[in-house]
């Protein structure tokens, strides 16, 4: 795509956004049960 090699296309348009998406998904689903541990 855009005249890039397939690995570079993957790194730029799949891997990179996926790293951010993974951060978002993990962020939303992790730490739901915080309870006691979360107190200062």
């Amino acid at each position, binding site marked *: 795509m855009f005249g890039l090699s397939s*690995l570079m296309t993957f*790194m730029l348009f799949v*891997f990179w956004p996926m790293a*951010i998406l993974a*951060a978002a998904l*993990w962020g939303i689903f992790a*730490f739901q049960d915080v309870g006691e*541990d979360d107190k200062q």
Partner: protein
Amino acid sequence: MTLTIGIIYLLVILVIGLWSMKRQKDMNTFYLGGRRFGPWLIAFAVSSTTMSGFGFIGIPGLVYENGYPSMMIIIFATAGIFVSFLILAKPMRKITQKFGALTIPDLLELRYNSKAVRGIAAIAILGGAIGYQMAQYKALGNMLQTVLGVDYQLALIIGVVILTFYVVAGGMISAIWTDFLQMLVMIIGSLIVFIGGMNLVGGMSQLNSDLSAINPDFVQAYHTTGPIGIFAFISYFFIYVIGHQGQPHVVSKFYMIRKVSLLKWACIIAASTYAITGLLSFSGLYARVLVEQGEMAVPQSADMVAPMFIEAYFPSVVAGLIFAAVMAAIMSTSEAFLLIASQSVVRDIYQQIIKKGEELPQKKELRLSRWVTFGVIVLTFLISLNPPDLVGWLGNASWGIFAASLVPVLSIGIIWKRATRIAAICSSFLGFICSVGLYILSVKDIYTPALDTGAVAFMISAVSFVIISLVTKPENSLVFEEGTDKRTA
């Protein structure tokens, strides 16, 4: 205009330093800001310290020379931020809070019940931080020289004086707030350059076909014949995805957050803002195409690629903003390193090893922290005027030093109960020696491994950590006892 914006920026930084000065009480507030920060502040601090002078000035230069393959550093480092949060953030925040730990060596001593592990970690951090600081000073001097139009020595002195003031007076509170401001400037600057430049070269497809005409390797993920081959690609993976967890100036931000549950927002904000600022590296590609077309002058050095491109094609307000952003990138990494170096002297070496853990009065703690920070700045500044070879090597190898000596003991150790003290001592020592030693051997052209020296040292350190842990007797550790961290217990 550039000068005006540069001066406004420096003044704002000074005001933040003054404002934070009043909020300092003891070592905890000086080095950790009292753990009162929210997710935006922590996230911006993580992304702005990861994005150093090298990231903002060095990488566009590398991209100019090598094409897309050098951009892999940015792509992998974004993933590295996510992986670090995933593995370290929660356990680090909880353990440091529960046991009152302030530094990474503190945490390691708790985990392995060993002063030796603390000592080795503190020395590795100090060595890497001082080395890295040299590179930051050089970048700061170069940048201020361009913005203020004074000579290099005077520019460097102005930069260091401002840095000294807001770091020594305001400690971590001013560092985190200036990080926030700096990251905002960096995000705006990067977006303007990315979008403006893309229009200039006629869009993505046009850019890539022009690049491919210059050198077909430029549009690959790694060179088939050039310097950034498949081994560099693999090394980048190890150094930037895995090695990110060992960067003490970055991961120490994890345990300054107000509440564990806020880490979820910090993670996504940090990864995405870092990726946005990484778009500045496209300026290297734009510049290359424009130079080959004869529209832009050939830069004298790789470090001048981004500044020259911006100065040539953007209005002076934008150029001023971007120069402020570059100064921001350099200063935010600098301040983090200065604080981390000072911390390992005051807390890890003086208070815990020399004074054997004796509590100091709050006032004395704060005074000592400030003086040592000041001392570290003066010392690193003096060394930077005429750096010996070893310091330069430590600087170039520092990301690798941190990765090799800290990642296995910290990341594997924090999730794997079977890891033992002997393994931690051997692994962090081996990691430190191998990362510095291999780097020196490769600089001297005696031996150059196919993979990057930092990546090799990391693998040696990680493998030895696991094997030695398995052959030594299992031990119990305080940090895994009931009520610490559910995920690791």
